[in-house]
């Protein structure tokens, strides 16, 4: 048995050498307090905005940002557990609660765009041109037209639930109401394939629309405003949080230079800006 043990030992040793070699390799040698975990929504990543902003931030500060793009709901859950340092999210009601409960500090307005109700060009529920988002949803329900919900506790899902609630209708459990449980881009694809209605943020829609057959049917209602805030996770709750890094990132998001980048982002590629910078503005002026 001794020799068998020897082989086992050498193979195991090989495995550990492999691990050690990798741990020591530069790829994982990111400096410790120099990394920031940013939990954010799928829309900021899928629209390509972060790909534009992060290199600028990393270059000027030396921090390395680990972006985890999930729904706003999950992003805040990560914040609650101290598994993220800073959040960039768009779910105002949940954010207020998050800060009130002491999980986050320094919530600051960054930018906005708007949500739009999309659907197939044939528009079976005849909602095109409808001014009120609420009325549009009522029509969709009345026509039993397929509606695709994100169903993932994201900011978009939160808004959509709020709108449905306002209609006073029982929407869940209906055959025409389906939840994808996917990100915005994928939910748009599903809606396009199934010729259903859905609600999306304009940023993601503009950046993926070339492959879709969905039309904007309802827009411009005040209830469709989509507002992004940056929140630092409260370091007094979780000592392991990189508070300095979080503050640096939050400051960066509302800085003049960054706001200028946000303002022009997407103009060249999509023909229209995807986000409107709002740093320093009173939220009330946006209609909140």
């Amino acid at each position, binding site marked *: *048995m*001794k*020799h*068998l043990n*020897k*082989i*086992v030992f050498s*193979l*195991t*040793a*090989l*495995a550990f050498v*492999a*691990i050690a*070699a*990798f*741990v020591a390799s530069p*790829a*994982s040698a*990111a400096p*410790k307090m120099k990394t920031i*975990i940013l939990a954010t929504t*799928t829309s900021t*990543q*899928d629209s*390509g905005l972060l*790909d534009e902003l*992060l290199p600028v931030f990393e270059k000027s500060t030396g921090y*390395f940002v*680990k*972006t*985890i*793009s999930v729904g706003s709901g999950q992003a805040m859950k990560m914040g609650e*557990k*101290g*598994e993220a340092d800073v959040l960039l999210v768009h779910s105002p009601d949940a954010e207020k609660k998050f800060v009130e409960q002491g999980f986050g500090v320094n919530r600051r307005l960054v930018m906005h765009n708007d949500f739009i109700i999309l659907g197939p060009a044939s528009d079976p529920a005849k909602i095109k041109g409808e001014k009120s988002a609420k009325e549009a949803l009522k029509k969709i329900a009345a026509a039993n037209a397929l509606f695709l919900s994100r169903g993932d506790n994201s900011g978009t899902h939160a808004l959509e639930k709020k709108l449905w609630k306002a209609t006073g209708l029982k929407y869940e459990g209906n055959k025409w109401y389906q939840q994808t449980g*996917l*990100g*915005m*881009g*994928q939910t*748009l*694809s599903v809606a396009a394939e199934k010729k259903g209605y859905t609600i999306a943020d304009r940023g993601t829609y503009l*950046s*993926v*629309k*070339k*492959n*879709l057959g969905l039309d904007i049917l309802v827009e411009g209602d005040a209830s469709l405003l989509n507002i992004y805030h940056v929140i630092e996770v409260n370091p007094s709750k*979780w000592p*392991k949080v990189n508070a300095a890094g979080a503050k640096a990132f939050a400051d960066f998001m509302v800085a003049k230079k960054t706001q200028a980048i946000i303002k022009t982002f997407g103009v060249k590629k999509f023909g229209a800006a995807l986000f409107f910078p709002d740093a320093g503005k009173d939220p009330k002026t946006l209609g909140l």
Partner: protein
Amino acid sequence: MDLILEGLITAFKLLMALDPEVLSITWLSLKVSGIATLISVGIGISCGMIVALTRFPGKKFVVSVVNTGMGLPPVVVGLFVTVFLWRNGPFGFLDILYTPTAIIIAQAVIATPIVMGISIAALQNLPAKMRLQILSLGATRMQMVMILVKEARLPLMAAVMAGFGGVISEVGASIMVGGNIKGYSRVLTTATVMETGKGEFATAFALSIILLLLVFIVNYLFTLIQQRERPR
């Protein structure tokens, strides 16, 4: 049809242009899954050897646990590894969540039972009397084990290929523990999911083709080793 054609063209263009981002993603995929496979081969074949060549009570139970492990869903592994590696979790002090190292750990956990299960089957498949025969010809135990491994070379190489195939194609765990961070922990599969989410189907298609090519090349090399003429 357009999409498939466009995807092929994009893949070709990305490959021809040696797009640095695509190259680094491909290289990271190969590196991460390669190391994970190496670890799983180290642990899987050695433990498999012990289980296959020794007798102990509860052996059938151990083997069935390993065989169940061959079907470990990557997302389940991803979830467990994430919870363990959380900053405020039991291994939080390591500070390796959302790094390529975390992906390697998750993938090694996925591949080890695969390699081990097939190794056990491969070694048990050898005629039982062969061991006695080898020993009676005067071989030491070490030599005997080496001969057995050589005899079982074909299925053992299949074990390595199955392990590698299982992890290079896996996305659930990689995205959970790696975070799909640009230029850092983004691998081919997670990039494909992301590009699909963005609606960039042509790019997603191109990445898939590159992934398939990579898997083919690696398996071709493995197969060359496997099918080599037996040294007599």
